[in-house]
């Protein structure tokens, strides 16, 4: 009995406990975790919003001419194929080790997803609807704002959901310049003696954050396009 107890104690001493989930880690480091989460949310929202603001005019432009759309779609494939670590490395000499490097990189990735979906949305507007609006005296601007964009909203939102979920995942790589949100916790946990509680907490928060954004956007799409309910 004594032998058993002492051997158990030795095992514990050699193999210090490194649990996957530890409430005391979360309690003791709530400030750090929340700060990382805030940074992650900030990176994601800023990148997707800037990406959307740039993508809309590009999509409108791309619809006008085949050459422009081929150029935009071709370059977006190239940008999307460049690995995130390489993208940040390309940007770092110009934007230095600041949060700008991460934001510009994330904007580029969200932009290429959004421009494709926005273009598909605009192209999906039925010709009859456009003709009817034209017949009712709609000019190009009113046509775009009051007819085409509302009709394309479901496709726009599908693009926003994909872009947001992948931006949440990509933002973790920002740790390479020190601004990776939850990615900072992942890598510092790894470098800190393989601190499992910190790594698991950050990984789970990443997934939950992606799901929360996805749900929020799905709900907004439902509220904004009451006519498309029932057709998923």
């Amino acid at each position, binding site marked *: 009995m004594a032998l058993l107890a002492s051997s158990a104690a030795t095992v514990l001493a050699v193999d210090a406990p490194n649990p996957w989930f530890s409430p005391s880690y979360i309690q003791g480091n709530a400030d750090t975790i929340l700060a990382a989460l805030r940074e992650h949310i900030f990176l994601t929202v800023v990148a997707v919003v800037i990406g959307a603001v740039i993508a809309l005019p590009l999509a409108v432009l791309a619809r006008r001419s085949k050459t422009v759309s081929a150029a935009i779609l071709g370059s977006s494939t190239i940008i999307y*194929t460049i*690995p995130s670590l*390489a993208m940040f*490395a390309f940007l770092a000499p110009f934007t230095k080790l600041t949060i700008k490097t991460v934001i510009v990189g994330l904007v580029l990735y969200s932009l290429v997803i959004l421009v494709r979906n926005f273009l598909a949305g605009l192209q999906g507007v039925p010709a009859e609807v456009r003709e009817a609006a034209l017949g009712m005296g709609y000019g190009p601007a009113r046509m775009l704002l009051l007819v085409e964009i509302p009709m394309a909203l479901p496709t726009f939102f599908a693009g926003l959901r994909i872009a947001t979920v992948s931006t949440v995942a990509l933002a973790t790589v920002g740790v390479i310049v020190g601004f990776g949100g939850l990615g900072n916790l992942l890598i510092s946990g*790894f470098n800190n003696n393989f601190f499992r509680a910190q790594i698991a907490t950050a990984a789970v928060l*990443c997934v939950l954050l992606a799901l929360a954004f996805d749900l929020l956007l799905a709900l907004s799409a439902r509220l904004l396009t009451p006519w498309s309910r029932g057709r998923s």
Partner: protein
Amino acid sequence: MSVLGDAVVYLNDPLNWTRTNGLLDRLIEHVTISGVATGAAALIALPIAIWFGHTGRGGGFTVALSNVSRAVPTLALLTVFAVTPIGFGNKATTIALALFAIPPILTNTYVGFREVDRDILEAAGAMGMSPLQIITRVELPLAVPAIMTGLRTAAVQVVATATLAALVGGGGLGVPINLAFGQQNEGLLLAGAFLVAVLALLTEAVLVLLARLVTPGPSRRLPRRLQLRTETI
């Protein structure tokens, strides 16, 4: 000297390529890890996807797997794997990357099989083809473009993710980039980024060409679906 000049000088110095753990070693390491991981993923995912696609079972599972895998950052999984008994190093990286590569191959192959015209399958059955003949002579040839899209997506994603392994003690071309960030060596940074980007683009180009080569004649003329990889890298 400019950053760009530093990068060009670095890439043009033969010693940077040929020394131990130089660029050439890292490149070979990167390509080997990626190739083995993609190959292993294909060996696992293709039979399952063919079975699912042929029988129409497992559709919900396949869709759920691809959606969930999109929400999980590859860096997070790589880090989590590194602190499990799998550990880190090239073998562990290969296992982790193979797991990442399964969902795109599985989903695309499954969809390719399900999109085969039901009338064609009925005709094949009526002609007396056995299930195995239907799979190998009807469904597989028609699903080749979709299967190749899955393989290309997986391969490009694996090449990209392999660079992240350097952040958690792995090898490959991420190592010089990680080193350059640590040393604030902008020339090396650009050189490393250039090599990784070229490798990813080459992977994409080679697999597009391969897809064209292995696609049976008539399917080649079908409009190529514009499909963007939605998996994260």
